[in-house]
């Protein structure tokens, strides 16, 4: 296997705009004994409590000012769906900000009334 090393990737057509590839991604199951279905550049996932998680990247980002995209959903028979927020507040209200290696997030049901575990949550990091 060979490794492609470049500083920039740009479109070959349509004006040659710069492409910003994902630097890390994760797909997890937050129900039962939580698990990682698949990931890239994450070394671990941590279950902090109901609907609260963090994931640690294998290799740090150069700064903590990266962007995360998250989504989650549940298919456990209930009628609610969930939202994920990329800065976590614990049940006690402690705020957890991202670092260059760790992303925290919490998931709440659609009306924000309660923290929820979900069977599908996806995280993506771009910098």
């Amino acid at each position: 296997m060979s490794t492609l090393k470049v500083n920039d990737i740009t479109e070959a057509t349509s004006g040659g705009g710069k492409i910003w590839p994902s630097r890390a991604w994760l797909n997890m199951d937050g129900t039962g004994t939580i698990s990682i279905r698949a990931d890239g550049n994450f070394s671990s996932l941590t279950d902090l409590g109901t609907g609260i998680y963090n994931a640690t990247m294998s290799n740090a980002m150069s700064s903590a000012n990266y962007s995360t995209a998250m989504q989650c959903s549940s298919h456990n028979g209930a009628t609610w769906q969930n939202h994920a927020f990329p800065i976590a507040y614990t049940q006690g209200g402690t705020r957890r900000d991202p670092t260059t290696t760790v992303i925290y997030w919490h998931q709440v049901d659609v009306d924000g009334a309660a923290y929820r575990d979900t069977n599908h949550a996806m995280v993506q990091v771009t910098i």
Partner: protein
Amino acid sequence: MTQYRVIFDDPDRLDEPTKVLVPSDRWMKEAMEGNLPPISVYWDLQDDEQKAIAEGRHDKFEHDPEKYMKQFTAPRIGPLTEEEALEYLIMKDLPRKCWAEQHNRPMFKIVTVDQVPSDRMFRNAWEMAV
């Protein structure tokens, strides 16, 4: 696929429920194939960032380029056993106070996945049995 998990308490947040760390299978494979840098590479980065947080300048913090690049350029440490990979992961991903300082009880344990409850009804009441 690893059958191990690490359960731990954060010494700074003992009022919170016990936490469960799930290793990435992809990362474990990399570790067991010998593709990791020395753990000190990550500690150096963590130390610099923690200092920036403590000094209130994390918003504009960027890693020193030379230290950052060592993640990719430092000589690899060679293949690890599964147990060694878990020990490396604990020293990389758990709060350092969990394993580097003495406490009046263990702050973490390596367990098998079937030792972790699968019923999450009372998840926020989980406590690590001593």
